[in-house]
């Protein structure tokens, strides 16, 4: 739908923004700012989804990730009162080791990807992209057939339910204890 050139332009734009924000979330000393930067990264990745033609997914992303998870993280920051304290820098050794581990992973992964030829199923021309991905996703999710995802779908829902209850129970018990100790 949007022309090839603008797509490339957008891609690089968003890529730099996303990497910048990601670095910010990881390095910033104030945890609240880190939360905000994280939100930025998630928004840019939603944009990427659109670029990649997964509009439904971009919506889900914005809804679940940005709407839910980031807010939760902010709550966590508030509850653990860590927003005031300034996080001191990790020791040089730890940073060094982490940097080496991360860059080694990055180098290995890019090396592998560059060496492998990720081609479309048929080489040369790309088969017809799915017209309406959301419809297709909906059908596949509830399809009881062999290729359907209904079982994982149900399991996920079960998982989310249990997490919901578990989380609240754990949090309530500890909050009650926190009241006593005060």
């Amino acid at each position, binding site marked *: 739908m949007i022309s090839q050139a603008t797509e490339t332009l957008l891609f690089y734009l968003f890529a730099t923004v996303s990497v910048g924000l990601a670095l910010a979330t990881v390095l910033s000393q104030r945890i609240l700012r880190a939360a905000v930067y994280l939100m930025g990264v998630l928004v840019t990745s939603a944009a990427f989804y659109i670029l990649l033609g997964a509009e439904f997914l971009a919506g889900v992303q914005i809804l679940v990730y940005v709407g839910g998870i980031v807010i939760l993280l902010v709550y966590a920051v508030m509850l653990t009162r860590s927003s005031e304290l300034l996080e001191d820098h990790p020791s040089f050794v730890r940073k060094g*080791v*982490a940097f080496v581990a991360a860059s080694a992973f990055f180098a*290995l992964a890019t090396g592998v990807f560059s060496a492998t030829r990720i081609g479309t199923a048929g080489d040369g021309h790309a088969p017809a992209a799915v017209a309406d991905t959301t419809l297709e996703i909906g059908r596949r999710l509830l399809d009881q057939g062999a290729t359907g995802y209904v079982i994982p779908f149900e399991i996920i829902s079960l998982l989310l339910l249990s997490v919901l209850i578990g989380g609240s129970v754990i949090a309530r018990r500890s909050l009650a204890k926190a009241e006593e100790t005060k």
Partner: protein
Amino acid sequence: MEHELGFALRNAWLILAIPFFSFLVVGLFIRPRAPKLAGIVATLAVFASAGFAYALAVEYLSLGGHDGWKTIVPWSFEWLRFQEHLAVHIGVIVDPISVLLMVVVTTVSSLVHLYSLGYMHGEAGFGRYFTWLNLFTFSMLALVTAPNILQMYVAWELVGASSFCLIGYYFEKPSAVEASKKAFIVTRFADLGFLLGVLILGYFGYQIASEAGGSAQAFDFLFLTNPEVMGKFSALGAGLFGIPLLTLALLLVYMGGAGKSAMFPLHIWLPDAMEGPTPVSALIHAATMVVAGVYLVARLFPLFATSGDALLVVAYIGAFTSVFAAVIACTQDDIKRVLAYSTLSQLGYMMFALGVASFEHPLGYTASMFHLFTHAFFKALLFLGAGSVIHAVHSNEIWKMGGLKAKMPVTHATFAIATLAIAGIWPFAGFFSKDEILAAALGSGHTGIFTLGLMVAGLTAFYMSRIYFVTFWGKAKTEHASHAHESPWIMLIPLVILAVLSIGAGFVPFGEFVRFGAAHGEAHGINPMIAAAGTLAGVLGIGFAWLLYRDGLAERSGVIARALGGGYRLIRNKFYFDELYLFVTHKIIFRLVAAPIAWFDRHVVDGGVNLSGWSARVFGSAVSYLQTGQVQTYGSWFVGGAVLLLFSLWMLRA
């Protein structure tokens, strides 16, 4: 054994059995309950064995010795069997020298037992003393009657052990304990040589015996001393450092003899052995044990004679020891130490007498045995006399005695006889045996040794008369000496008997009984020229001593002592040999050998084991360092591991 043996000869084993069983009975049963009775029973047992020994002697002599005395082994049984031709028999050998020794040992031992009943009266371990004395008598008799060299070695050790107990009788006195230890260890060191000699003789004897076959036993004296075996031995060729094997073996065996008879390098223990009670010194360190070395050389004399140069060594060591000891004896103050050095010197005499003897001139052999015979009596008498003086004055120092001539007439008379005997004055025994030895030395061409012998004779006369004058003449020098009184009769009887023997022993026609080889031998009579020289030396010695010490005081001799200066002090401290030996044992052996080995074992060998334990622990703790508890450290290890794994998988995918 063609003709019938007398009663004693048939059951010769009694000579060993009596003292042994009396030792067991007295030691185990009587001593704990009734010490007094133990003493009496022990003395009776020794008297019985003395009687038996005389019977044996008479019977053996009655067998007639006109064509040379036969050596018979009336009784022996197989005690310890190593291999066919290598078995140890316990038995009794009867030949001139063993009969002589049996008589001497039992006589002196019984007199000493009798004397001890008085002397040891009131001592704490009265029973224990007599038990050990009985054991000593048994082991000495076993040594003397040994038909083979291993029984002699066995008895040798037993004699050493019982002398250890007797020297250390006053075990609460540290000096006595030290002396007994020193005696045992020095003689044990000498016995090491003896054992090595026995091993060599045994090995080559076994080779010869197994060729000869039959019932030949490698260790038996009869086997070792019969001519063609000796021939084979001397043909053995060079052993260690080029010394012919026979000579090497004999020198090693002689080392054992030298240790027991306190010859020069191994003499240090005898003077200290005076720590034991005086009757012990009289019996062991004068008459019996110390002559064991001489008896050993006499027993193996044919072998020694074939090897020749072994005899030379014996002669030279003997001569040197006699001079060396005589010189020291002149400077000692303790009466028993003077007698100890005099014994050393007389033993040197006997040794060099044997040394000068050979197949051609066997007179030395007879002379040495004769001197052994006479010396046993007058030396025992001297010791017992000294004992009764010490008993009265309660001190060994001659400068604390004096003027005892009047107060102790019997002791004085007998001591005087013994002094004249040892000085070699005519009617007394010493004159005859010493003259024989000098004649043997001159006869076999050893003029050097002859002159040394003369000099020693003079010195002996000097130091003996010195202690005689200082002890008995002049005025009483201390309280004790002033109101000393004569010893009880039980102590005096042995003195008198020994005095009689000291006089009579000289007239015994010794040449007939004890000689080596055929009956002819050299003219046995007294050679007037040598006799005169010997007597002159003796008289000179006595006269010189009379000049210095006639009033029992030391100031005249002090002048000479100061004149000699350093030399005098050197001699007086026995040429510092004791200190040298102490230095060698303590500083070198204990400090530089034993302690490092103990340290080495504790730290290095032990360390090795502990090291393995320690390294296991260190390795364990090193691994535990990784468990830091930091979640993120684990995270990094996790990521690192994953990357490595992926990388290796990717690398190996081809």
